[in-house]
């Protein structure tokens, strides 16, 4: 029977045989492929659902409640959102601080990273060593130790004050002055240019050498080659780095927390958005209020990322569009 069953297909042509033979195989194989795929995906998928999607949805609910962590949440409607925008001067301050930080630290970081990538994209001896050295700050940058180091460098008798003092600028303590504290954090962020630099370096390596050759033959100098070849060819990478930077710097937390002892001081001058979320949620026990702030931040980041994507068609040149 089994033979007879399989002998049904030989009646057809060779071509149709192979098709008929392949069909059950094809139907079976993707199924098992998918099963294995889902199996391997499961740890991440479960993690996503349980530890990310679940809490995210709960926080959406909590943002409409009065919740102090210890007692059951009480539904208050949109009250948290209304309070944020009408009766909370510290929230406005947190927005000011965060926007100032994002719009200075992110571009400066990118420019710095690009400049160093250009420098390090040369064939000199020991270039690997230099690249490693310039990447180190990024490995250290987010850590508590560096935040404390920063406090010392920009403190009252810190290196910066002493050097400036040598040049006759008798300054104060930078980290503890409301006018300058935020700028020390911008500098800290710019100093962590490493990961953007590595991505730029990879981008620079992708630019075909013949473009430069052709341009050189046409008489283009270094500056022209940079403006008309390097920069346009690099725009996809710049775009990628820009999106990452926007998202990262909106969420900056650790340096401000350490340098200000968790308070966002002096005088709320380093009250980053995420730090204020933390203070309201975990110090003042207003978790519903903090959740509302978290959702607004999500929307803000979403809007700015979308703007970056919408603008990209005007300035980002992809290879295939050449």
């Amino acid at each position: 029977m089994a033979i007879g069953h399989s002998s049904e297909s030989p009646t057809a042509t060779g071509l149709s045989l192979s098709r008929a033979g392949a069909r059950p195989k094809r139907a079976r194989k993707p199924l098992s492929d998918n099963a294995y795929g889902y199996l391997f995906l499961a740890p991440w998928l479960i993690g996503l659902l349980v530890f990310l999607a679940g809490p995210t949805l709960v926080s959406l609910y909590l943002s409409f409640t009065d919740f102090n962590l210890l007692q059951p949440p009480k539904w208050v409607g949109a009250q948290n959102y209304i309070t944020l925008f009408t009766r909370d001067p510290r929230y406005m301050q947190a927005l000011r601080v965060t926007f100032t930080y994002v719009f200075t630290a992110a571009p400066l970081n990118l420019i710095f990273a690009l400049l160093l990538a250009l420098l390090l994209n040369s064939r000199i001896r020991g270039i690997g060593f230099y690249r490693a050295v310039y990447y180190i700050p990024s490995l250290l940058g987010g850590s508590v130790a560096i935040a404390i180091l920063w406090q010392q460098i920009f403190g009252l008798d810190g290196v910066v004050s002493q050097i400036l003092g040598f040049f006759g600028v008798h300054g104060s303590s930078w980290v503890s002055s409301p006018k300058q504290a935020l700028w020390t954090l911008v500098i800290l962020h710019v100093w962590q240019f490493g990961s953007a630099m590595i991505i730029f370096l990879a981008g620079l390596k992708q630019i075909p050498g013949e473009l430069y050759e052709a341009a050189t033959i046409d008489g283009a100098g270094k500056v022209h080659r940079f403006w008309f070849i390097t920069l346009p060819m690099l725009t996809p990478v710049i775009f990628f780095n820009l999106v990452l930077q926007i998202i990262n710097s909106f969420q900056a937390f650790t340096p401000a927390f350490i340098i200000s002892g968790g308070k966002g001081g002096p005088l709320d001058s380093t009250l980053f958005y995420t730090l204020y979320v933390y203070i309201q949620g975990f110090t003042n026990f207003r978790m519903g209020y903090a959740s509302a702030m978290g959702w607004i931040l999500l929307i803000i980041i979403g809007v700015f990322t979308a703007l970056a994507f919408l603008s990209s068609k005007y300035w980002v040149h992809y290879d295939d569009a050449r």
Partner: protein
Amino acid sequence: MAKQEDLEAAGSARRLTRRTILVGAGALAVSPLLSGVSFAQDATTMRLSWWGSDDRHKKTLALIQLFQSKHPGLTITPEYGGFVGYQDKLSTQFAGGNAPDVMQVAEPGPLIASGRLLALDDYIAAGTIDVSNASKSVLETAKVNGKQYSVPWGLACGCYFLDNQVFEDAKVDIPDYGWTWDEYAKVAKSLSKPGFYGSADIWAAAGTRSLAALEVFLRERQKYAFTPEGKIGFGPDELTEWFTFWDELRKAGAVPPGEVTALETGFETSPIITGKAAMYPINSSIASSLQGLTKHKLTVAPFPTGVGSTALKGDQYGAFVNSSMQIYINVDAKDKDLAAAFVNFVLNDPEAAKIQLMARGVPASSKIAELVTPNISPVEQSMVATVKYVADHASPGFVPWPKQGSEVQDLMQRSHQAVAFEQASIADTVSQFFDQAGQILG
């Protein structure tokens, strides 16, 4: 018949033997697990959590060793760190149902309100926790709605640490315990020179100064930081007077400008340690830790008084003794009796006292305090004398802070900063303080 029975017995015995072997083997295989289980039931674990500096960490770890040696099979897991972030972590642990069994709590209000901390009254009534030698007035300060949720793990008062070296060099006498605010201002001015300040400011970016210090002044006028109903207990006049007093000292160079004060992230980086000031206001309980950070000899003086003063004038003594920190039990503690025994141990055990000494301030039990006083360092002797002086002169009365108290304290710190950094006038700062405090207190 007998034979038959024997046979049957033998048969059943044989059958039983087979079964017994199996059961026996099984039991044998499981027995280590069983003993393991019973062992685990004997061996209790307890989690103890506190904040502090190295000195306190070392002494508390030794304390744990001693308690464990008295309770064989008990393992205490210590959880400790600095003050910054301590309460945030603890509250989160409570929210997650994963809080320690016994602990120091910085802001007990919300935890008590939500029923997370154990009322100790039953244990006190039963004598498991013996408070007969503890200060009644301080015990009273730890009561919430008439229930005793904690016992003081050391007594302290707000005080000034004085750098004796600077006083000697400047040929200025160390003030008497009864000094007034006028005398304080005079001493601060006479110790100042360019780049050096007679005294640290009354606020700090970190820690718990500002509102607690203001309360010393308010008590001179029979007022408190809060009313019993949980509203602000003072008016714009007092706050204006307070800000003005400090602003004048700042402008005279007797206390440091804002950016110097803002550098203090804890007493480790306070101006008395970094060599910027000669007098430093803080809770007296850190005496030995603070002395450990400087070669200059330190002594302790109480907060100045407004009686007989023109500045910050009042008609009764303002300074008061409180518990430097309190020990609490989790309402879900695994073994509440054992936790209560530990509380009693830190409060009354003479051996424990000899380990702790003054790591958390003056021992709350007067008997224990007398016992260890001969063993302590000069700065601690001076601290004990100061706390005693304040306890003898303090006026009765106390109003506990509402659960948003620490939020108002943070607001007060920011208000101090607004004045110190000259971001707002005193009048504007005062009116903003009352607006925002009203909002916080609801």
